[in-house]
């Protein structure tokens, strides 16, 4: 298996994998989105809420706020041996504000300074003059299978690595395919009088160029066993960690099958 990173920043990564099959890459993708744990607010005790927003709408907004996660120091609530909540399986965030103001995610005061909302500028609610809010929110680890708020990834997908071939014997050098391509991937080389592919990885395999070619000289297909994988996270975990955890989970699952067979 060969992996080349094409593009990477704090919460997004694009890479090309070669020498894997669809079931494998799809297993990784599914585990990334739905089985890697992350932190999200699960229980909210609202002591006071004078604002126009209903308690349940407020709790829902809180649940969607991504929280920086440290998977090494925490366990899933279902695997924790405490009775209700403890620092090993949950983090408390306190909110106490008085209007008039817009309450932002930075106003949530976390028990643990390392486990705080990823963004400071998420508007949570609006308070008018004299209105007050006071609540305690408890964030827990969970997985996307249970609720989408626990998905560490936002977009996580792969596609075939495209392959564009121009049959030089059939090609009439009309350059119609160059005009047709909506993404400007093809170029016409005036000197050599032929079509060249300039930006292959940007090809969406829409096959507009194939339809536009009158002499059927151009073909677009996906390469077998080669994929472009894009993973973007909500900021709670870096993309490399999500991928590494997904691989751990997959190998744990296969170990279980080996154990069962042996």
């Amino acid at each position, binding site marked *: 298996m060969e992996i080349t990173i094409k593009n990477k920043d704090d919460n997004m990564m694009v890479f090309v994998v070669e020498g894997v099959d669809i079931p494998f890459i799809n297993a990784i993708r599914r585990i990334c989105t739905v089985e890697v744990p992350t932190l999200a607010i699960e229980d909210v005790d609202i002591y006071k809420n004078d604002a126009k927003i209903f308690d349940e709408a407020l709790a829902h907004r809180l649940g969607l706020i991504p929280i920086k996660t440290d998977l090494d120091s925490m366990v899933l609530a279902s695997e924790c041996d405490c009775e209700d909540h403890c620092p090993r399986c949950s983090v408390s965030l306190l909110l106490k504000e008085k209007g008039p103001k817009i309450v932002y995610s930075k106003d949530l005061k976390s028990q643990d300074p390392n486990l705080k909302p990823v963004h*400071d500028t*998420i508007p949570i609610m*609006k308070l008018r003059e004299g209105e007050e809010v006071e609540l305690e929110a408890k964030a827990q680890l969970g997985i996307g299978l249970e609720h989408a708020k626990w998905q560490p990834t*936002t*977009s996580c997908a792969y596609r075939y690595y495209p392959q564009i071939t121009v049959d030089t014997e059939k090609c009439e050098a009309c350059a119609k395919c160059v005009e047709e391509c909506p993404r400007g991937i093809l170029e016409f080389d005036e000197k050599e009088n032929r079509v060249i592919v300039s930006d292959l990885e940007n090809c969406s395999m829409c096959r507009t160029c194939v339809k536009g070619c009158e002499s059927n000289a151009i073909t677009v297909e996906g390469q077998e066993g080669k994929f472009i994988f894009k993973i973007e996270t*909500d900021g709670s975990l870096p993309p490399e960690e999500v991928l590494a955890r997904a691989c751990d989970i997959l190998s744990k699952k296969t170990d279980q099958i080996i154990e069962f067979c042996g």
Partner: protein
Amino acid sequence: MIPVRCFSCGKVISAYFDEYQKRTADGEDPKKVLDDLGITKYCCRRMFITHVEVW
């Protein structure tokens, strides 16, 4: 209020809404502001463009 996340992909878009609103109110082109903020996917971009702040 703007939804916390994009309906389709789940990216946290609300964190950038204040800046978007301020800059477009100052007369900047929404397209340019969204490009600047790194909102590249069209699902996320429509969240900004179609949002009406009512209260």
